[in-house]
Protein backbone atom coordinates (compact mmCIF):
# COMPACT_ATOMS: atom_id res chain seq x y z
CA UNK A 1 0.00 0.00 0.00
CA UNK A 2 1.31 3.43 -0.86
CA UNK A 3 1.73 5.84 2.08
CA UNK A 4 -0.50 8.40 0.34
CA UNK A 5 -3.42 5.99 0.23
CA UNK A 6 -3.01 4.66 3.74
CA UNK A 7 -4.97 7.40 5.45
CA UNK A 8 -8.00 9.46 4.56
CA UNK A 9 -8.57 12.98 5.77
CA UNK A 10 -11.71 14.51 7.24
CA UNK A 11 -12.00 18.29 7.48
CA UNK A 12 -14.79 20.53 8.73
CA UNK A 13 -14.54 24.31 8.44
CA UNK A 14 -16.00 27.12 10.52
CA UNK A 15 -16.05 30.38 8.64
CA UNK A 16 -16.70 33.66 10.44
CA UNK A 17 -17.85 36.43 8.17
CA UNK A 18 -18.28 40.03 9.18
CA UNK A 19 -21.52 41.34 7.70
CA UNK A 20 -21.21 44.66 5.89
CA UNK A 21 -23.70 46.67 7.93
CA UNK A 22 -23.07 50.33 8.77
CA UNK A 23 -23.58 49.86 12.51
CA UNK A 24 -22.78 47.03 14.93
CA UNK A 25 -25.15 44.13 15.55
CA UNK A 26 -26.67 45.28 18.86
CA UNK A 27 -25.74 48.99 19.08
CA UNK A 28 -25.32 52.04 16.86
CA UNK A 29 -21.51 52.19 16.91
CA UNK A 30 -19.89 52.39 13.49
CA UNK A 31 -18.33 49.29 11.91
CA UNK A 32 -15.69 51.30 10.04
CA UNK A 33 -12.31 49.56 9.90
CA UNK A 34 -9.04 51.15 10.89
CA UNK A 35 -10.27 53.84 13.29
CA UNK A 36 -8.34 54.90 16.38
CA UNK A 37 -8.61 52.23 19.13
CA UNK A 38 -11.75 52.49 21.27
CA UNK A 39 -13.25 55.35 19.27
CA UNK A 40 -16.23 53.18 18.19
CA UNK A 41 -17.51 51.83 21.48
CA UNK A 42 -20.51 52.49 23.70
CA UNK A 43 -22.06 51.07 26.89
CA UNK A 44 -23.63 48.16 24.92
CA UNK A 45 -20.49 46.91 23.19
CA UNK A 46 -18.36 47.65 26.26
CA UNK A 47 -20.68 45.51 28.36
CA UNK A 48 -21.59 48.17 30.89
CA UNK A 49 -24.14 46.99 33.44
CA UNK A 50 -27.69 47.83 32.43
CA UNK A 51 -26.93 48.51 28.77
CA UNK A 52 -29.42 46.79 26.48
CA UNK A 53 -28.71 45.23 23.07
CA UNK A 54 -31.16 45.78 20.19
CA UNK A 55 -30.97 43.68 17.01
CA UNK A 56 -29.83 45.35 13.78
CA UNK A 57 -32.52 44.50 11.20
CA UNK A 58 -30.13 44.72 8.24
CA UNK A 59 -27.78 42.15 9.85
CA UNK A 60 -30.64 39.64 10.08
CA UNK A 61 -31.63 40.32 6.47
CA UNK A 62 -28.06 39.74 5.29
CA UNK A 63 -27.85 36.55 7.33
CA UNK A 64 -31.08 35.16 5.88
CA UNK A 65 -29.74 35.86 2.37
CA UNK A 66 -26.65 33.76 3.10
CA UNK A 67 -28.73 30.99 4.67
CA UNK A 68 -30.99 30.83 1.62
CA UNK A 69 -28.07 30.98 -0.83
CA UNK A 70 -26.47 28.03 0.96
CA UNK A 71 -29.66 26.06 0.54
CA UNK A 72 -30.40 26.02 4.27
CA UNK A 73 -33.65 25.60 6.08
CA UNK A 74 -34.34 29.01 7.69
CA UNK A 75 -35.62 28.70 11.24
CA UNK A 76 -39.17 29.91 11.77
CA UNK A 77 -38.15 30.87 15.26
CA UNK A 78 -34.67 31.77 16.45
CA UNK A 79 -33.18 33.16 19.61
CA UNK A 80 -29.89 34.33 21.01
CA UNK A 81 -27.93 32.76 23.85
CA UNK A 82 -25.10 33.82 26.10
CA UNK A 83 -21.85 31.91 25.73
CA UNK A 84 -19.69 32.45 28.79
CA UNK A 85 -15.95 32.58 28.99
CA UNK A 86 -13.29 34.85 30.40
CA UNK A 87 -10.89 36.62 28.12
CA UNK A 88 -9.73 40.24 28.13
CA UNK A 89 -11.27 40.92 24.71
CA UNK A 90 -14.74 39.98 25.97
CA UNK A 91 -15.95 42.79 28.23
CA UNK A 92 -19.26 41.23 29.35
CA UNK A 93 -17.60 37.86 30.06
CA UNK A 94 -20.12 36.37 27.68
CA UNK A 95 -20.64 36.53 23.95
CA UNK A 96 -24.12 36.87 22.50
CA UNK A 97 -24.37 33.96 20.08
CA UNK A 98 -26.89 31.30 19.04
CA UNK A 99 -26.93 27.84 20.54
CA UNK A 100 -29.86 25.51 20.04
CA UNK A 101 -32.07 27.61 17.77
CA UNK A 102 -29.71 28.98 15.11
CA UNK A 103 -30.86 31.05 12.16
CA UNK A 104 -30.34 28.35 9.55
CA UNK A 105 -29.30 24.72 9.23
CA UNK A 106 -28.93 21.78 6.86
CA UNK A 107 -27.73 23.43 3.69
CA UNK A 108 -25.18 22.45 1.10
CA UNK A 109 -22.60 23.89 -1.20
CA UNK A 110 -21.61 22.37 -4.50
CA UNK A 111 -17.98 22.63 -5.58
CA UNK A 112 -17.45 22.73 -9.33
CA UNK A 113 -13.97 24.21 -9.72
CA UNK A 114 -12.18 21.39 -11.51
CA UNK A 115 -15.25 20.17 -13.36
CA UNK A 116 -15.80 17.47 -10.73
CA UNK A 117 -18.89 18.09 -8.67
CA UNK A 118 -18.76 17.50 -4.94
CA UNK A 119 -21.32 18.45 -2.33
CA UNK A 120 -20.22 19.83 1.04
CA UNK A 121 -23.07 19.86 3.52
CA UNK A 122 -23.60 22.95 5.68
CA UNK A 123 -24.43 22.08 9.26
CA UNK A 124 -25.59 25.46 10.53
CA UNK A 125 -25.43 29.21 10.03
CA UNK A 126 -25.78 31.48 13.03
CA UNK A 127 -25.42 35.11 14.06
CA UNK A 128 -23.19 36.37 16.85
CA UNK A 129 -21.25 39.39 18.00
CA UNK A 130 -17.51 39.72 17.59
CA UNK A 131 -15.13 40.24 20.51
CA UNK A 132 -12.62 43.08 20.85
CA UNK A 133 -9.13 42.95 19.43
CA UNK A 134 -6.05 42.13 21.47
CA UNK A 135 -2.81 43.72 20.42
CA UNK A 136 0.30 42.22 21.90
CA UNK A 137 2.67 45.04 22.70
CA UNK A 138 6.17 44.39 21.46
CA UNK A 139 7.81 45.73 24.54
CA UNK A 140 6.94 44.97 28.12
CA UNK A 141 4.58 42.44 29.56
CA UNK A 142 1.33 44.00 28.40
CA UNK A 143 -1.44 43.34 25.91
CA UNK A 144 -3.65 46.16 24.65
CA UNK A 145 -7.39 45.91 24.07
CA UNK A 146 -9.34 47.74 21.37
CA UNK A 147 -13.12 47.36 21.57
CA UNK A 148 -13.89 48.85 18.15
CA UNK A 149 -14.42 45.29 16.91
CA UNK A 150 -16.54 44.29 19.90
CA UNK A 151 -20.14 43.85 18.73
CA UNK A 152 -19.39 43.67 15.01
CA UNK A 153 -22.02 41.48 13.32
CA UNK A 154 -20.63 38.04 12.55
CA UNK A 155 -22.14 35.15 10.69
CA UNK A 156 -20.71 31.74 11.44
CA UNK A 157 -21.02 29.15 8.69
CA UNK A 158 -20.23 25.63 9.89
CA UNK A 159 -19.67 22.83 7.38
CA UNK A 160 -20.15 19.15 8.02
CA UNK A 161 -16.86 17.19 7.98
CA UNK A 162 -17.27 16.47 4.26
CA UNK A 163 -14.02 18.03 3.06
CA UNK A 164 -11.38 15.47 2.17
CA UNK A 165 -8.22 17.44 1.37
CA UNK A 166 -6.51 20.79 1.92
CA UNK A 167 -7.12 21.63 -1.75
CA UNK A 168 -10.82 20.98 -1.34
CA UNK A 169 -10.85 23.20 1.78
CA UNK A 170 -9.30 25.95 -0.30
CA UNK A 171 -11.93 25.45 -2.98
CA UNK A 172 -14.73 25.52 -0.42
CA UNK A 173 -13.47 28.79 1.05
CA UNK A 174 -13.14 30.35 -2.40
CA UNK A 175 -16.70 29.33 -3.19
CA UNK A 176 -18.11 30.62 0.12
CA UNK A 177 -16.33 33.92 -0.40
CA UNK A 178 -17.58 34.15 -3.96
CA UNK A 179 -21.20 33.60 -2.85
CA UNK A 180 -20.88 36.19 -0.05
CA UNK A 181 -19.57 38.74 -2.53
CA UNK A 182 -22.31 37.96 -5.04
CA UNK A 183 -24.81 38.59 -2.24
CA UNK A 184 -23.00 41.83 -1.36
CA UNK A 185 -23.23 41.09 2.37
CA UNK A 186 -19.53 41.15 3.26
CA UNK A 187 -16.34 42.45 1.72
CA UNK A 188 -14.62 39.19 2.83
CA UNK A 189 -11.32 40.91 3.45
CA UNK A 190 -9.14 38.44 5.36
CA UNK A 191 -6.46 41.04 6.01
CA UNK A 192 -8.98 43.23 7.81
CA UNK A 193 -10.41 40.22 9.60
CA UNK A 194 -13.82 40.33 7.94
CA UNK A 195 -13.43 36.66 6.98
CA UNK A 196 -11.82 34.19 9.36
CA UNK A 197 -11.58 30.46 9.32
CA UNK A 198 -11.05 27.68 11.86
CA UNK A 199 -10.72 24.03 10.93
CA UNK A 200 -11.37 20.65 12.52
CA UNK A 201 -9.21 17.93 11.08
CA UNK A 202 -8.69 14.24 11.66
CA UNK A 203 -7.21 11.35 9.75
CA UNK A 204 -8.04 7.65 9.84
CA UNK A 205 -6.86 4.51 8.15
CA UNK A 206 -8.50 4.21 4.74
CA UNK A 207 -11.76 2.33 5.16
CA UNK A 208 -11.85 2.60 8.96
CA UNK A 209 -15.40 2.88 10.26
CA UNK A 210 -15.10 5.59 12.90
CA UNK A 211 -13.48 9.00 12.53
CA UNK A 212 -10.08 9.66 14.03
CA UNK A 213 -9.53 12.05 16.92
CA UNK A 214 -9.67 15.60 15.61
CA UNK A 215 -7.64 18.67 16.38
CA UNK A 216 -8.87 22.22 15.98
CA UNK A 217 -6.75 24.64 13.98
CA UNK A 218 -6.91 28.39 14.49
CA UNK A 219 -5.12 31.53 13.44
CA UNK A 220 -4.95 30.96 9.70
CA UNK A 221 -4.97 34.35 8.03
CA UNK A 222 -5.15 33.57 4.33
CA UNK A 223 -6.82 30.89 2.20
CA UNK A 224 -3.36 29.74 1.21
CA UNK A 225 -2.45 29.65 4.90
CA UNK A 226 -5.44 27.37 5.54
CA UNK A 227 -4.25 24.98 2.84
CA UNK A 228 -0.67 24.89 4.11
CA UNK A 229 -1.70 24.59 7.76
CA UNK A 230 -4.05 21.68 6.99
CA UNK A 231 -1.34 19.86 5.06
CA UNK A 232 1.08 20.43 7.94
CA UNK A 233 -1.44 19.06 10.40
CA UNK A 234 -2.14 15.97 8.25
CA UNK A 235 1.59 15.23 8.12
CA UNK A 236 1.96 15.83 11.86
CA UNK A 237 -0.93 13.52 12.73
CA UNK A 238 0.42 10.83 10.36
CA UNK A 239 3.84 11.03 11.98
CA UNK A 240 2.31 10.66 15.45
CA UNK A 241 0.28 7.60 14.39
CA UNK A 242 3.19 6.03 12.50
CA UNK A 243 5.26 6.22 15.65
CA UNK A 244 2.52 4.40 17.51
CA UNK A 245 1.33 7.52 19.31
CA UNK A 246 -2.16 8.84 19.85
CA UNK A 247 -3.76 12.06 18.58
CA UNK A 248 -5.00 14.21 21.42
CA UNK A 249 -8.07 16.38 20.98
CA UNK A 250 -6.64 19.87 21.31
CA UNK A 251 -6.57 23.32 19.80
CA UNK A 252 -3.51 24.22 17.80
CA UNK A 253 -2.47 27.60 16.46
CA UNK A 254 -0.99 28.02 13.01
CA UNK A 255 2.18 30.07 12.96
CA UNK A 256 2.67 31.29 9.40
CA UNK A 257 6.21 32.60 9.91
CA UNK A 258 7.41 29.29 11.39
CA UNK A 259 5.16 27.26 9.06
CA UNK A 260 3.98 24.92 11.80
CA UNK A 261 1.19 24.48 14.33
CA UNK A 262 1.66 24.93 18.05
CA UNK A 263 -0.40 23.59 20.90
CA UNK A 264 -2.52 26.38 22.32
CA UNK A 265 -1.91 26.79 26.00
CA UNK A 266 -5.23 26.03 27.65
CA UNK A 267 -6.31 26.29 31.23
CA UNK A 268 -6.79 23.21 33.34
CA UNK A 269 -10.57 23.05 33.19
CA UNK A 270 -12.47 21.96 30.13
CA UNK A 271 -14.47 24.61 28.33
CA UNK A 272 -17.87 24.94 29.88
CA UNK A 273 -19.67 27.79 28.19
CA UNK A 274 -22.81 27.58 30.34
CA UNK A 275 -25.09 28.67 27.51
CA UNK A 276 -28.44 30.10 28.46
CA UNK A 277 -31.02 32.18 26.58
CA UNK A 278 -30.12 35.87 26.30
CA UNK A 279 -32.82 37.55 28.39
CA UNK A 280 -32.17 41.00 26.89
CA UNK A 281 -33.19 39.95 23.37
CA UNK A 282 -36.66 38.65 22.60
CA UNK A 283 -37.13 35.79 20.13
CA UNK A 284 -37.37 36.37 16.39
CA UNK A 285 -40.02 34.81 14.22
CA UNK A 286 -39.16 34.61 10.54
CA UNK A 287 -42.19 33.96 8.37
CA UNK A 288 -42.18 32.01 5.12
CA UNK A 289 -43.12 35.08 3.08
CA UNK A 290 -40.01 36.93 4.18
CA UNK A 291 -37.84 33.96 3.29
CA UNK A 292 -39.55 33.52 -0.09
CA UNK A 293 -39.20 37.18 -1.00
CA UNK A 294 -35.50 37.14 -0.06
CA UNK A 295 -35.08 33.97 -2.11
CA UNK A 296 -36.70 35.69 -5.10
CA UNK A 297 -34.41 38.70 -4.74
CA UNK A 298 -31.14 36.74 -4.85
CA UNK A 299 -28.86 37.36 -7.82
CA UNK A 300 -27.73 34.49 -10.05
CA UNK A 301 -25.15 32.69 -7.93
CA UNK A 302 -21.68 31.59 -9.11
CA UNK A 303 -22.52 27.94 -9.69
CA UNK A 304 -25.56 28.72 -11.88
CA UNK A 305 -23.58 31.36 -13.70
CA UNK A 306 -20.73 28.91 -14.31
CA UNK A 307 -23.13 26.41 -15.85
CA UNK A 308 -24.63 29.11 -18.05
CA UNK A 309 -21.20 30.34 -19.17
CA UNK A 310 -20.12 26.85 -20.17
CA UNK A 311 -23.47 26.06 -21.79
CA UNK A 312 -24.31 29.33 -23.58
CA UNK A 313 -20.92 30.86 -24.32
CA UNK A 314 -19.18 27.48 -24.71
CA UNK A 315 -16.36 28.72 -22.49
CA UNK A 316 -13.68 26.32 -21.31
CA UNK A 317 -14.70 25.19 -17.78
CA UNK A 318 -11.37 26.32 -16.27
CA UNK A 319 -11.75 29.86 -17.66
CA UNK A 320 -15.45 30.01 -16.81
CA UNK A 321 -14.81 29.11 -13.17
CA UNK A 322 -12.14 31.81 -12.83
CA UNK A 323 -14.41 34.44 -14.38
CA UNK A 324 -17.59 33.63 -12.41
CA UNK A 325 -15.66 33.58 -9.14
CA UNK A 326 -15.80 37.39 -8.99
CA UNK A 327 -19.16 38.89 -9.76
CA UNK A 328 -17.81 42.09 -11.35
CA UNK A 329 -15.43 40.09 -13.55
CA UNK A 330 -18.33 37.98 -14.79
CA UNK A 331 -20.45 41.12 -15.35
CA UNK A 332 -17.59 42.62 -17.37
CA UNK A 333 -17.38 39.47 -19.45
CA UNK A 334 -21.09 39.52 -20.26
CA UNK A 335 -21.14 43.23 -21.11
CA UNK A 336 -18.08 42.83 -23.33
CA UNK A 337 -19.67 39.83 -25.03
CA UNK A 338 -22.63 42.01 -25.99
CA UNK A 339 -20.29 44.45 -27.72
CA UNK A 340 -18.11 41.76 -29.28
CA UNK A 341 -20.15 38.57 -29.69
CA UNK A 342 -17.93 37.34 -32.54
CA UNK A 343 -15.36 35.64 -30.30
CA UNK A 344 -16.23 35.39 -26.60
CA UNK A 345 -13.41 32.93 -26.00
CA UNK A 346 -11.01 35.73 -26.94
CA UNK A 347 -12.71 37.98 -24.35
CA UNK A 348 -12.25 35.27 -21.72
CA UNK A 349 -8.57 34.94 -22.64
CA UNK A 350 -8.03 38.69 -22.29
CA UNK A 351 -9.88 38.79 -18.95
CA UNK A 352 -7.96 35.90 -17.41
CA UNK A 353 -4.70 37.11 -18.97
CA UNK A 354 -3.88 40.79 -19.44
CA UNK A 355 -6.83 42.22 -17.50
CA UNK A 356 -6.35 39.93 -14.50
CA UNK A 357 -2.67 40.87 -14.62
CA UNK A 358 -3.50 44.58 -14.45
CA UNK A 359 -5.90 43.93 -11.55
CA UNK A 360 -3.24 42.04 -9.60
CA UNK A 361 -0.61 44.65 -10.34
CA UNK A 362 -2.85 47.44 -9.14
CA UNK A 363 -4.49 45.39 -6.35
CA UNK A 364 -7.89 46.49 -7.66
CA UNK A 365 -11.19 44.80 -8.32
CA UNK A 366 -12.72 44.90 -11.79
CA UNK A 367 -15.39 47.32 -10.63
CA UNK A 368 -12.79 49.83 -9.47
CA UNK A 369 -10.43 49.44 -12.44
CA UNK A 370 -12.42 51.90 -14.55
CA UNK A 371 -12.21 49.84 -17.75
CA UNK A 372 -15.51 50.07 -19.61
CA UNK A 373 -16.67 46.88 -21.37
CA UNK A 374 -17.79 48.95 -24.41
CA UNK A 375 -14.29 50.38 -24.71
CA UNK A 376 -12.73 46.94 -24.37
CA UNK A 377 -15.07 45.45 -26.99
CA UNK A 378 -14.20 48.31 -29.33
CA UNK A 379 -10.50 47.60 -28.83
CA UNK A 380 -11.04 44.02 -30.00
CA UNK A 381 -12.86 45.36 -33.05
CA UNK A 382 -9.88 47.60 -33.86
CA UNK A 383 -7.72 44.49 -34.06
CA UNK A 384 -10.21 42.79 -36.38
CA UNK A 385 -10.41 45.88 -38.54
CA UNK A 386 -6.63 45.82 -38.95
CA UNK A 387 -6.27 49.27 -37.38
CA UNK A 388 -4.00 48.00 -34.61
CA UNK A 389 -1.97 44.86 -34.07
CA UNK A 390 -2.55 42.48 -31.20
CA UNK A 391 0.75 43.57 -29.73
CA UNK A 392 -0.23 47.25 -29.78
CA UNK A 393 -3.56 46.28 -28.18
CA UNK A 394 -1.75 45.05 -25.07
CA UNK A 395 -0.24 48.49 -24.52
CA UNK A 396 -3.43 50.23 -25.57
CA UNK A 397 -5.33 48.35 -22.86
CA UNK A 398 -3.03 49.84 -20.22
CA UNK A 399 -3.47 53.32 -21.74
CA UNK A 400 -7.25 52.87 -21.67
CA UNK A 401 -7.12 51.87 -17.99
CA UNK A 402 -4.89 54.79 -17.11
CA UNK A 403 -6.71 57.49 -19.07
CA UNK A 404 -10.26 56.17 -19.15
CA UNK A 405 -10.35 57.19 -22.84
CA UNK A 406 -11.97 55.27 -25.68
CA UNK A 407 -9.54 53.19 -27.78
CA UNK A 408 -10.20 54.97 -31.09
CA UNK A 409 -9.30 58.34 -29.56
CA UNK A 410 -6.10 56.91 -28.11
CA UNK A 411 -5.08 55.26 -31.38
CA UNK A 412 -5.44 58.66 -33.06
CA UNK A 413 -3.74 60.75 -30.39
CA UNK A 414 -0.90 58.33 -29.75
CA UNK A 415 -0.39 57.38 -33.43
CA UNK A 416 -0.79 53.66 -32.81
CA UNK A 417 -2.34 52.75 -36.16
CA UNK A 418 -0.89 49.79 -37.91
CA UNK A 419 1.50 50.66 -40.74
CA UNK A 420 -0.32 49.54 -43.85
CA UNK A 421 1.75 51.64 -46.25
CA UNK A 422 3.74 49.05 -48.22
CA UNK A 423 6.45 51.55 -49.13
CA UNK A 424 7.10 52.42 -45.49
CA UNK A 425 7.23 48.74 -44.52
CA UNK A 426 9.58 47.91 -47.36
CA UNK A 427 12.02 50.59 -46.19
CA UNK A 428 12.09 49.10 -42.71
CA UNK A 429 12.48 45.60 -44.14
CA UNK A 430 15.46 46.61 -46.29
CA UNK A 431 17.11 48.14 -43.24
CA UNK A 432 16.63 44.93 -41.23
CA UNK A 433 18.00 42.77 -44.07
CA UNK A 434 21.03 45.03 -44.37
CA UNK A 435 21.74 45.02 -40.63
CA UNK A 436 21.38 41.24 -40.21
CA UNK A 437 23.51 39.57 -42.88
CA UNK A 438 24.10 36.41 -40.83
CA UNK A 439 20.45 35.43 -40.28
CA UNK A 440 19.67 36.32 -43.88
CA UNK A 441 22.52 34.03 -44.99
CA UNK A 442 21.18 31.28 -42.69
CA UNK A 443 17.75 31.65 -44.24
CA UNK A 444 19.13 31.26 -47.69
CA UNK A 445 20.97 28.12 -46.55
CA UNK A 446 17.67 26.54 -45.55
CA UNK A 447 17.41 27.53 -41.87
CA UNK A 448 13.98 29.01 -42.55
CA UNK A 449 13.03 29.37 -38.90
CA UNK A 450 15.26 32.46 -38.57
CA UNK A 451 12.38 34.27 -40.26
CA UNK A 452 10.79 34.63 -36.80
CA UNK A 453 13.83 36.57 -35.66
CA UNK A 454 13.71 38.85 -38.70
CA UNK A 455 9.98 39.49 -38.28
CA UNK A 456 10.74 40.38 -34.66
CA UNK A 457 13.35 42.89 -35.80
CA UNK A 458 10.85 44.58 -38.10
CA UNK A 459 8.29 44.67 -35.28
CA UNK A 460 10.88 46.32 -33.07
CA UNK A 461 11.75 48.92 -35.66
CA UNK A 462 8.04 49.77 -36.09
CA UNK A 463 7.33 49.65 -32.34
CA UNK A 464 4.81 46.86 -32.88
CA UNK A 465 2.79 48.76 -35.43
CA UNK A 466 3.45 46.36 -38.28
CA UNK A 467 1.31 43.32 -38.98
CA UNK A 468 3.58 40.31 -38.34
CA UNK A 469 1.69 38.15 -40.84
CA UNK A 470 2.20 40.65 -43.67
CA UNK A 471 5.84 41.18 -42.70
CA UNK A 472 6.40 37.44 -42.77
CA UNK A 473 5.01 37.21 -46.30
CA UNK A 474 6.98 40.22 -47.47
CA UNK A 475 10.23 38.90 -46.01
CA UNK A 476 9.80 35.47 -47.61
CA UNK A 477 9.11 37.02 -50.97
CA UNK A 478 12.02 39.45 -50.69
CA UNK A 479 14.58 36.91 -49.51
CA UNK A 480 13.48 34.40 -52.10
CA UNK A 481 14.86 36.84 -54.65
CA UNK A 482 18.23 37.35 -52.94
Amino acid sequence: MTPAGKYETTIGLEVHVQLATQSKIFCGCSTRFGSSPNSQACPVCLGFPGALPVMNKEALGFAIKVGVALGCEIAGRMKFDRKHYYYPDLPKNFQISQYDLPLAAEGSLELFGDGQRRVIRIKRVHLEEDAGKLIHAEKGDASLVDFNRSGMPLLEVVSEPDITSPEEAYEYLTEVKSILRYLDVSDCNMEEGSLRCDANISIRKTGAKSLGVKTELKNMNTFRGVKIALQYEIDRQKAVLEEGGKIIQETRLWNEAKARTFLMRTKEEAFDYRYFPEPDLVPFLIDRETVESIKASLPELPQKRYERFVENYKLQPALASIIVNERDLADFFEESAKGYPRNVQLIANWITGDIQGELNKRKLSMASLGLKPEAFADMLKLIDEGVITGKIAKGLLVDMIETGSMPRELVKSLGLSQITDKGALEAVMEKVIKNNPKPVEDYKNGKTNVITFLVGQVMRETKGKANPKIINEMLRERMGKL
Partner: protein
Amino acid sequence: MKKKIDVEYIANLARIRLSKKEIDGFSGQLADIISFIEKLNKADTKETPPTTHPLPLKNVFRADTVKKSLTQEKVLQNAPEKRETSFKVPKIIEES
Protein backbone atom coordinates in the same frame (compact mmCIF):
# COMPACT_ATOMS: atom_id res chain seq x y z
CA MET B 1 -33.73 13.84 46.71
CA LYS B 2 -30.80 16.17 47.12
CA LYS B 3 -28.28 16.61 44.33
CA LYS B 4 -24.62 17.04 45.02
CA ILE B 5 -23.50 20.36 43.56
CA ASP B 6 -19.84 20.89 42.76
CA VAL B 7 -19.62 24.41 44.14
CA GLU B 8 -15.86 24.55 43.78
CA TYR B 9 -16.10 23.88 40.03
CA ILE B 10 -18.80 26.51 39.56
CA ALA B 11 -16.89 29.05 41.65
CA ASN B 12 -13.84 28.44 39.51
CA LEU B 13 -15.84 29.00 36.31
CA ALA B 14 -17.19 32.24 37.76
CA ARG B 15 -13.71 33.31 38.89
CA ILE B 16 -14.69 33.72 42.53
CA ARG B 17 -12.79 32.43 45.53
CA LEU B 18 -14.81 30.79 48.29
CA SER B 19 -13.81 29.59 51.74
CA LYS B 20 -14.41 26.01 52.83
CA LYS B 21 -17.27 27.24 55.01
CA GLU B 22 -18.87 29.10 52.11
CA ILE B 23 -18.53 26.09 49.82
CA ASP B 24 -20.35 23.88 52.33
CA GLY B 25 -23.03 26.51 52.87
CA PHE B 26 -23.70 27.16 49.18
CA SER B 27 -23.60 23.47 48.42
CA GLY B 28 -26.65 22.84 50.60
CA GLN B 29 -28.49 25.97 49.47
CA LEU B 30 -27.92 25.34 45.76
CA ALA B 31 -29.04 21.73 46.15
CA ASP B 32 -32.27 22.95 47.77
CA ILE B 33 -32.89 25.39 44.92
CA ILE B 34 -32.28 22.75 42.27
CA SER B 35 -34.58 20.22 43.89
CA PHE B 36 -37.26 22.90 44.24
CA ILE B 37 -37.02 23.74 40.55
CA GLU B 38 -37.04 20.05 39.66
CA LYS B 39 -40.69 19.98 40.69
CA LEU B 40 -41.33 21.55 37.27
CA ASN B 41 -40.28 18.29 35.65
CA LYS B 42 -43.50 16.75 36.99
CA ALA B 43 -45.69 19.30 35.18
CA ASP B 44 -47.39 18.08 32.00
CA THR B 45 -45.99 20.26 29.20
CA LYS B 46 -47.09 18.15 26.25
CA GLU B 47 -49.32 20.90 24.91
CA THR B 48 -47.10 23.83 25.94
CA PRO B 49 -44.84 25.41 23.33
CA PRO B 50 -41.25 25.92 24.52
CA THR B 51 -40.71 29.30 26.12
CA THR B 52 -37.40 31.00 25.60
CA HIS B 53 -38.41 34.39 26.90
CA PRO B 54 -40.92 35.50 29.53
CA LEU B 55 -42.00 38.65 27.67
CA PRO B 56 -44.77 38.34 25.05
CA LEU B 57 -42.62 40.26 22.56
CA LYS B 58 -40.93 39.26 19.33
CA ASN B 59 -38.93 40.81 16.48
CA VAL B 60 -37.67 43.93 18.21
CA PHE B 61 -35.30 45.63 15.77
CA ARG B 62 -33.34 48.78 15.26
CA ALA B 63 -32.55 50.29 11.87
CA ASP B 64 -28.96 50.01 10.64
CA THR B 65 -27.97 53.59 11.40
CA VAL B 66 -24.76 54.78 13.00
CA LYS B 67 -25.10 56.61 16.31
CA LYS B 68 -22.45 58.53 18.14
CA SER B 69 -20.16 56.36 20.25
CA LEU B 70 -18.72 57.42 23.59
CA THR B 71 -15.64 59.62 23.50
CA GLN B 72 -12.37 57.77 24.00
CA GLU B 73 -11.92 59.63 27.29
CA LYS B 74 -15.26 58.30 28.54
CA VAL B 75 -14.53 54.77 27.31
CA LEU B 76 -11.22 54.69 29.17
CA GLN B 77 -12.40 56.62 32.23
CA ASN B 78 -12.67 53.53 34.43
CA ALA B 79 -9.77 51.58 32.96
CA PRO B 80 -7.41 50.44 35.72
CA GLU B 81 -4.55 50.81 33.25
CA LYS B 82 -4.32 52.22 29.74
CA ARG B 83 -1.80 52.99 27.04
CA GLU B 84 -2.68 55.78 24.61
CA THR B 85 -6.32 54.97 23.77
CA SER B 86 -6.18 51.24 24.56
CA PHE B 87 -6.94 49.26 27.68
CA LYS B 88 -3.82 47.69 29.09
CA VAL B 89 -3.99 44.16 30.48
CA PRO B 90 -1.37 41.61 31.55
CA LYS B 91 0.27 40.02 28.52
CA ILE B 92 -1.80 37.27 26.94
CA ILE B 93 0.32 34.55 25.39
CA GLU B 94 -1.43 31.97 23.29
CA GLU B 95 1.47 29.93 22.05
CA SER B 96 3.51 27.42 23.89
